[in-house]
């Protein structure tokens, strides 16, 4: 388990548009499903805490990109929310803003958190398909219009190349040296 995150460069996606703000991680996966010790197999619980969530998912069986309103993934730190999304085949979430912890978790697992608002978001919310170019940081909606988006340059690397933990491991010696030189209080 817990192998390197798979490389994601381009996503040709079908969307699941959720016209809601503040979809918290309790709605994405309720705590009663957090009883395991594995990162896999959580897709079956996705959106079971969201009123109307299961029906919405059933109506879009092939969706792999979520489009939602602001503050997606707020609340609990449970990374299970991201694992449930990726297990279910989702590659990206598009929303005007994210809960901080969810966004960090997404990057660490290769789920692309795309912050988009205004015209781009409205177009994405209406789009049944979407094309995402991670490297070029742009997406194209169904009507052929293209919108750019920002990605954190360091964390983008974890999406493109995976290996967040490997990267951290390369820092251990430097951290030890820093700690040894740290003034004691």
């Amino acid at each position: 388990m817990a192998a390197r995150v798979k490389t994601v460069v381009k996503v040709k996606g079908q969307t699941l548009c959720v016209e809601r703000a503040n979809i918290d991680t309790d709605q994405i996966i309720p705590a009663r499903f957090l009883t395991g010790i594995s990162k896999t197999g959580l897709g079956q619980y996705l959106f079971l805490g969201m009123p109307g969530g299961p029906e919405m998912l059933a109506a879009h069986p092939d969706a792999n990109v979520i489009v939602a309103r602001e503050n997606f993934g707020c609340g609990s730190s449970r990374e299970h929310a991201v694992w449930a999304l990726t297990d279910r085949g989702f590659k990206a979430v598009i929303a005007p803003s994210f809960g901080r912890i969810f966004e960090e978790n997404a990057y660490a697992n290769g789920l692309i958190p795309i912050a988009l608002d205004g015209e781009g978001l409205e177009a994405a919310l209406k789009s049944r398909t979407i094309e995402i170019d991670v490297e070029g940081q742009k997406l194209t909606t169904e009507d052929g219009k293209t919108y750019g988006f920002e990605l954190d340059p360091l964390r983008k690397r974890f999406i493109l190349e995976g290996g967040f933990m490997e990267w951290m491991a390369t820092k251990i010696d430097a951290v030890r040296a820093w700690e040894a030189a740290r003034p004691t209080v």
Partner: protein
Amino acid sequence: MSKSLLDKVWDAHVVEDLPGENALLFIDRVIAHEITTPQGAIDIQERFGDKLYDPDRIIAMNDHVSPAKDQETAIQAQVLRTWAKRHGIKLYDIGDNGICHVMVPERGYVEPGLTMACGDSHTCTLGAFGALALGIGTTLQAGAMLAQCLILQKPKVMRIDIEGKLGHGATAKDVILYVISKISFKGGTGYVLEYHGPVVDAMSMDERMTLCNMAIEAGATSGMCEPDETTIGYLRGREAQPTGEAFEKKIAYWRSLKADPGASYDKVVKIDVSGLRPMVTWGTNPGEVVPADGTVPADANATSLEYMGLQPGTSLRSLELDQAFIGSCTNSRLSDLRIAADVLRGRKVTIPTIVTPGSQAVKRAAEREGLHDVFQDAGALWTHSSCGPCLGMSMGVVAPGLRCVSSTNRNFPGRMGNGGRVHLASPAVVAASAVLGRIGSPEDLEAAAPREKVTA
């Protein structure tokens, strides 16, 4: 340069500057609980030779579902246990455990100026001590156990000055609910909330923890209070703190962490709590809140209304309740239990009521004061410590459509049980409501049902 409290803590922990305005930030202590730690611990074992940067910098506890409720949660607890034992990590387990955000301060593991991280969003509670305390996911926590660091962009700082004289019956919980209603449920996103002002200065550490606990409920990265004599007094003599000269030496450093006069902030907010009354949430996020004697707002969000089974204009006092819960990392410390007991003394609850102390140490302290008798005489269930129904996992999960008044921190759909409806309030309001069977403050209770004569 004048520095904020956050500046001071941050600057003392930057190991390296990284691309994208990120920093590699040293984390002094990692807290590990059974729900979010196993996957990361297993990953380190399988792919990184089971090597932790420094097991002495980790504190572990079984807290969310402890004792385990079933086979799965028993396995989670066992994984944490064997992992902690293998590495010589300090573990708090059945019999001497408690909710991580209650235990870590109570045992003195948090102190001013430290950086702390835990796979739990309410880690922000610990900011009450002037530490930078961060809730993170499992993978980042594993990274912090492997290399003792997080990759972080420095958060912005919102200085929140809280002033004025609280109205009758208002507590720290009412203050933070009010703050969230003012800055909004997502208004803190990207910020650390630095709480200042006379109201905060006058608060006990328990109250400051309640204030910081719900910083995440405004979307904030964390909350922080300046260390002062209250902080020092709280920490003196705690289990993880040194004694004698070693402790005195720390104090000098802690005192230096106060925000400098003239420090610059990304945002400054003044909150006047004069006359603030007890607050209760009506909706499905903690910012959807009104005074306990208020009504559901006219412009209430339709999705929230539908989930909560409410109409605009409905008076909260008219709502019949099915359950009451006093507990959680927000409000389950000894002072919270005292307040609840004061309301319940000589009275009877009329709905199923559960009182769950924040740690076994809190439980024992409460029992030494006879609080367990007060709760049980009132007809409430007095349990061992755990997170319990706060996250809808065990010990009093709320059934679909039922209404629970709760001293916890989240009223999200399904939070305390699928379809369950949660109204957040202070322990005093929960206790009063448990007697009334509907939402009400201790004042309402006094008016409606004067207490029986208390003998003894």
